[in-house]
């Protein structure tokens, strides 16, 4: 089948320019046999169940999978083996749309940096720079609390642009949310994603007092970072943020500070950067490939994704070595994948976007997530008029991984969830082979780590 260069916008029916749609994934949609240094295993997609098997069964399953016409026989065999079960994931949309519990506040749709690949298009989401007024932020808090039961939890994420450009609204909103949540008997959690160039001691005090999860965007070490994350006038920012971040790292307690890197062709060599950043005292470090940017800048092609995959695997070696030495090594890509595999996490969506999580723009408009702010594609009401539950229900129905192609014939679909909605709708599924290869690596690593360090999963 020839590659299709366009992707149908799922909800609006608008044709959008996108990348190629991958061909049907290899293997069976039901099971995926794999090997580790401890032997043979099989992942059953439904319920993300993992079994140890013997070589003979591996060979038998692999042969049934390789024979494309033997799908029925394969299912029958799984039934005989006791590996079939009632569906863990319903095929249809959820009967009820979940309440919105978490919201991101794009408090500043503007940024002091000039990263070319920013999903927010320089921080303003392709529009006019805007600052969120206090009443929009308060109204968001009120709306979340209105749906929360006593004893429940809500979460607020401050993002941008660069959110610290509007720090007054952040401070006031935190105080308002903490007071109102306490009155309602609801727990509230806070997080912020910042480039840290504007960070002050008072900001750190606020984050520490309220136990923020702070994510600092760092795309490499020193010059690499400088080249990717310059100011609008082209100056590097590494030294500036290091001077501001290091005191914050020293104060971690209730507050946790993580580093997150967007990976472009210019910074795929992540292994050293992860080690250095963890060494500086970041609570965890994670990376994410840039697969969609407003102007195509910085996007990774398949060959570059292969380079990144090799680096991810090399970084896993460091993680394993640290575990063997009785130390922690919070490289979140592998740590979260292993915990998910251990729990058997199975999900029909890649994230909570449009479900329990919505993104709120500076003007009070609500979107499926922070990436869809200002984009009609993911519009979901507003804090004034209320969340658009019909749009959310439609989203839940349309974005279900079993309704996605080629996801529904892929063994990895309930681990992957179908990929970031924003990237998929904008550019198609361009990284499926990369994701499957990474998950295959994680599955084998899980078996090996579980055998060597079972307590790590306790």
């Amino acid at each position, binding site marked *: 089948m020839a590659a299709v260069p366009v992707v149908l916008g799922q909800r609006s029916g608008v044709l959008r320019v996108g990348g190629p749609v991958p061909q049907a994934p290899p293997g069976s949609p039901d099971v995926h046999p794999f090997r580790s240094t401890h032997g043979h*295993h099989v992942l*059953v997609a439904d*319920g*993300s*169940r*993992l*079994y*140890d*098997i*013997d070589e*003979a*069964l591996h060979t*038998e399953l692999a042969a049934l999978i390789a024979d494309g016409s*033997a799908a*029925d*026989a394969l299912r*029958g*065999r799984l039934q*005989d*083996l*006791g*590996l079939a*079960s009632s569906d*863990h994931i319903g095929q249809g949309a959820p009967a009820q749309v979940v309440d919105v519990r978490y919201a991101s506040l794009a408090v500043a749709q503007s940024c002091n940096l000039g990263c070319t690949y920013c999903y927010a298009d320089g921080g303003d989401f392709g529009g006019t720079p805007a600052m969120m007024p206090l009443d929009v932020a308060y109204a968001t808090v009120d709306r979340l609390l209105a749906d929360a039961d006593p004893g429940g939890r809500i979460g607020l994420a401050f993002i941008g642009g660069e959110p610290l450009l509007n720090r007054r609204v952040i401070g006031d909103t935190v105080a308002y949310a903490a007071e109102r949540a306490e009155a309602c008997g609801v727990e509230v959690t806070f997080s912020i994603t910042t480039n840290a160039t504007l960070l002050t001691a008072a900001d750190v005090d606020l984050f520490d007092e309220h136990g923020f999860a702070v994510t600092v965007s760092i795309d490499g070490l020193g010059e690499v970072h400088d080249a990717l994350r310059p100011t609008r006038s082209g100056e590097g920012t590494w030294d500036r943020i290091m001077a501001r971040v290091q005191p914050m790292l020293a104060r971690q307690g209730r507050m946790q500070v993580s580093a997150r890197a967007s990976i472009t062709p210019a910074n795929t060599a992540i292994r050293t950067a992860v080690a250095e950043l963890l060494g500086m005292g970041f609570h965890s470090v994670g990376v994410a490939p840039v697969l969609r940017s407003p102007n195509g800048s910085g996007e990774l092609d398949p060959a570059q994704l292969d380079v990144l995959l090799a680096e991810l695997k090399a970084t896993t070696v460091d993680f394993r070595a640290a575990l063997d030495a009785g130390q922690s090594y919070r490289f979140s890509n592998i740590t979260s994948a292993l915990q998910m*595999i*251990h*729990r*058997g996490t*199975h999900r029909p969506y890649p994230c909570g976007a449009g479900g329990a999580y919505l993104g709120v723009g500076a003007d009070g408009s609500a979107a499926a997530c922070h990436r869809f702010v200002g984009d009609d594609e993911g519009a979901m009401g507003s804090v004034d008029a209320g969340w658009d539950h019909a749009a959310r229900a439609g989203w839940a129905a349309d974005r279900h991984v079993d309704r996605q192609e080629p996801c529904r014939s892929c063994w990895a679909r309930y681990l992957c969830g179908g990929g970031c909605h924003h990237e998929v709708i904008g550019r198609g599924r361009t990284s499926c082979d990369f994701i499957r290869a990474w998950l295959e690596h994680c599955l084998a690593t*899980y*078996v090996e780590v*579980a055998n060597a360090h079972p*307590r790590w999963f*306790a």
Partner: protein
Amino acid sequence: MNGFIQPRNLTARAAHQVVGNPTSTRMESGVANCFPGLEWDIRELDRRFFPGLVFQFVQTPLYPVPGILPAQQGAKLAWLDSLEDPALPFTSDEPWVRDLLATLEQNIGQINHLSQGRWYLDSFEQYGTTFVMADEHGTPYEGEMVWRMIRGIQPNEPLTIRIQQRSDAGTGEPIGDKVTLKGFRRQFLDPDGVVDHSFKAGELTMSMCNPWSHDFRDCACHYWASNHPDVVLGPAEATLDDGQPADPTDAAVKLDWIRRDRSPGGRVASAATITENRPFQIDHYEMNARWEELPFVLEGREIGAVYSPPERAQAVGATLEALQTRLRTELAPLEFTLALQYLYAMFSVRTPAEVDAERWPDLPGDVAAIRQFVMLVAVSEMQHLRWANRLLWELDQHLDPNAVYQPVLHHTSTLWKGEAAELAPLTPETVQRFVEIERPGGQIDTAYAQAVSTLKARPDLGHLYDLAIRIDTDGNEHYSRFSDIGRILAAYPSGVDAPYLRSVELGTAETAAAALTPFHTLVERLTDAYKLEASGDEAPAQRKIDEARTAMLDVQSAADDLAARGIGVPFWTD
């Protein structure tokens, strides 16, 4: 062939079905997991967290009596159980077991050591971290607090504990040397979810304030059917020489399990609804006093005194070749024949709509039950037919890889001791014949007991052994079903006046064509399916099975219609 499969991650483990007891009987599916204290007390597991010792978790009394012993709270050593603990066999070569037993032995004999005074858990150490059972002022933690800490200990990982004596005087301060013991935290459940053998009967429930039957008092049949039966058959105490109850009518009455009047005179049929039965049931307060009077229920029947399982045939094994011959010439044809005999008999029984309910008010329910019972046995025989064929094709292949298996799907004209196989209505005489056929120690039972013995000696054919066991075990249930039917029928006139029977005569190929045509299709499809299954072609085999099922439904519907018009289906003609 079944491959090796071991569940690894959490969802796989949760979905794993262990062969054997139903999941509802496993401890991990117990109600107590959600409601600690119902069914069993989870704290009692941790009494035996350390092999060889049994602790008791003691709380300071809310209203202490003056003069009681000081500092009673914490994990108190209740007794040493090292002699009976299956984790500590004195013949063990495990260094930690030998060391632990030596340490315990050394400390038991000495004055002021473990056999005397009050000993408490002082601390435990795992993964290099020590947890002390007292606060920073040295005040011992309460038993509940200690229990929670002990629950966090990882099983099957090295564990060191220290125990120390407390003074009976003053504030109960620690005295003497601490005794250090090294071992492992006990694994409370084995991989199949079975409780460790160190726990004695009643130990997990001994601290409950009410018997579980009290807490389940109002759950009726809606929730806990497995351990709280709703209605039961009464104990068949007086029996005749052949093992049948002297008063079959009485033995067939459905009784309320928690009826208050438990005298023989109180054995009146349970009413149809919970509300109607409620006034005649024991209440919560009575449950606490009289729970021991509630009898065990086995096979739907209250067990009055000692339960004696039906005697099993003793059988000596035969060769695989002899078993193969017997399956082909005797057992598989027998299963085919019995399934059809039972079906024929079932069709001869009226439906609830066809009986005179004004004259016999209980008859609609009784005929519905009888038809259901016979159908269940017939279906079970059909399953046995498939298993017998599977035993055959696997034995064929095992004994001669080039052998071509031929399904056995035909009847036998002789059943037992020369008795002819007969398609007959479900008269009391027919029921009695069925009882004799299925009776433990009878022909079928003996034959399968021999198959079990033969296969038991062949570990390489373990899956065939399992199959033979299942067929063999089902026989007891068939026997009970037909015995129950006999008791039910005894309440009604027999012969031509039997109000439960249709007047059915054996039809001909022409008059019964509506049922015989799908029946022949059924046999053909099953023949194809078994051949395909034997050669490993499972997907096409499944399609044939599906077609056979459809044909079976057609047979059932047509045969029932014909029987209602007085025509019995001649499944065979010789």
